[in-house]
């Protein structure tokens, strides 16, 4: 199957800064892509470009549509959860379900009602009477009932407690995701999504600094725990990062032979958050 998203030379300039700097990437169907970056790195701008919410220069093809010209058609195939608080506060549960059911050709009302039945939401409840967690449950119920090919999540669990966060990703994996769907998610809570991601993209200052699937990440980046006497040797091999734990040093290497590292100490796969910190450490300096 051809790519869901193809971006070529994508740039976006705001008044004072370059939010996207000549970015190119491809996203294949059936993937769950984590778009991770520090604040202001251009994540949201990238997602807005994909959704046709902002203008940009360069080429962008999303499911065969140009988001600038065919936004309304594109949104028939794409779902989008911006963050927790974007459902209109005045609307009632039954109103929003009625509305989406009647304007969205791919909406399955029964499915949505089944999801809602698992929550404490009542049909006459207004969004303004709900907690953040309940709003996300409602939004997720709407989105999961839409048979879309691309789902975009921009900080979908910001400010939720851990029960709602866990449930959110669990529902998404169990009841929604399949090989015909693609999910792009941005979040700062990297630990919570790393086990569900198939692909990882790091973005920094408007540039993609890492774009790989998780298997490749595991092969390329290796962490090794080295005792103090071997640390200078390890340091000489130019690690990405070094930190101390219980008198030992942990080094993070990019593209060094596994066998070579195994000779120095215990090796393991780095967590995405350690990798992120190592890659981005000079961002705010």
């Amino acid at each position, binding site marked *: 199957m051809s790519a869901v998203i193809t971006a070529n030379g994508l740039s976006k300039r705001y008044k004072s800064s370059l939010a996207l700097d000549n970015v190119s990437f491809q996203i294949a169907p059936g993937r769950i892509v984590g778009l991770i970056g520090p604040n202001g790195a251009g994540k949201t701008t990238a997602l807005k470009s994909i959704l046709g919410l902002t203008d940009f220069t360069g080429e962008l093809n999303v499911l065969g549509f140009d988001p600038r010209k065919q*936004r*309304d*058609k594109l949104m028939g195939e*794409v779902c989008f959860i911006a963050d927790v*608080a*974007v459902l209109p506060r005045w609307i009632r549960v039954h109103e929003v379900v009625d*509305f989406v059911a009647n*304007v969205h*050709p791919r909406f399955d009302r029964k499915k949505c009602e089944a999801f809602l039945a698992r929550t404490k939401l009542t049909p006459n409840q207004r969004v303004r009477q709900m907690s953040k967690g309940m709003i996300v449950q409602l939004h997720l119920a709407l989105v999961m009932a839409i048979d879309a090919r691309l789902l975009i999540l921009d900080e979908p669990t910001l400010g939720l407690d851990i029960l709602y966060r866990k449930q959110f990703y669990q529902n998404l994996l169990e009841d929604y995701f399949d090989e015909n769907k693609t999910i792009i998610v941005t979040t700062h809570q990297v630990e919570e999504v790393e086990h569900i991601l198939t692909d990882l993209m790091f973005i920094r200052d408007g540039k993609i600094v890492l774009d790989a699937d998780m298997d490749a990440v595991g092969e390329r980046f290796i962490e090794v725990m080295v005792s103090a006497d071997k640390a200078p040797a390890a340091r000489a091999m130019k690690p990405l990062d070094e930190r101390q734990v219980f008198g030992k040093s942990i080094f993070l290497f990019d593209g060094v032979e596994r066998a070579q590292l195994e000779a120095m100490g215990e090796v393991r796969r780095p967590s995405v958050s350690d990798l992120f910190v190592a890659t981005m450490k000079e961002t705010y300096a």
Partner: protein
Amino acid sequence: MKTFYWLVKREFWEHRGSFLWAPIITGGVMLALTLMGIITSEVFRARSGMQVNGIDFNTITAHMGPDALDMIGKALDIAIMAPIVLIGIVLFLVVFFYCLGSLYDDRRDRSILFWKSLPISDRDTVLSKAFCATVLAPVIAIVTSVVTGLLIMVIMAIAASLHGANLWQMLWTLPHPFRIIASMLSCIPLYVVWALPTVGWLMLCSAWARNKPFLWALIIPIGSGIFVSWFNLMGLFNLGDKWFWGNIVARSLVSVIPGGWVPGQLYGNGRSQFDQAGTDGHQVFASALAAAHNYAALVSPEFLVGAAAGIAMIIGAIWFRRWRDDS
């Protein structure tokens, strides 16, 4: 078409309070006041001979001459016009603030991100809002005011029949009340066209302003009006500031007042067949009613140019709705 229907329904859900309840409550208050007036006059009838909406119940008898009948008919006109005027003022406020918020409020609370996640074009969204401002809200208001007017007449007829006067028959035979109702209903198309420049201007501000659309919507036309007047005062150019205030400032801000075209029709430019209206109050009233639904006015420059400007501004609002990126 189905999407458009649901978009309009969505607007109605959100603004049920101002579209539906504001005119109904106003009408209800008018009815209550009429009832209270009648009861008061019944109580104090012997002493003071109070009037309710211009009808002195003491003078109502079963045998009235044509003069008296005419008087009562005119009084009924006033009785039915009162709720129409009041609800018209309410409608003006409702539509004015609805338009100002229509493309701004959801940007401010970021719910635009939810609306834009649905497969609906920005054109349809903006048009559904313009439809609500020019058709839905006025129709609800006019129907409510007509119903209120009818109820007031019925209350009066009941009160009159307590005095032995058969106003029921008068309601059907007198030309006034039903002519007013017919005029009100038939003036809706003119209202839609007449309101376009104001609706367009307010929605354009609502879609364009990054903050405080109310201030921008007022400052730009009024400021430019003052500017033009100042030039006039200085005698630099003869720009005709009266023309500017009447045709630019007023049309972009207060054209959503129902019947706003009537004064222009009656007194404007020495034109129109209503000039002989004269000074007699009832004649002016009758001419005003006729002017209110004079469809020939639709092709006058006031209507045509205004409508074209309004449509252009709505197109501008669609463009800003599509590309404004600040949520």
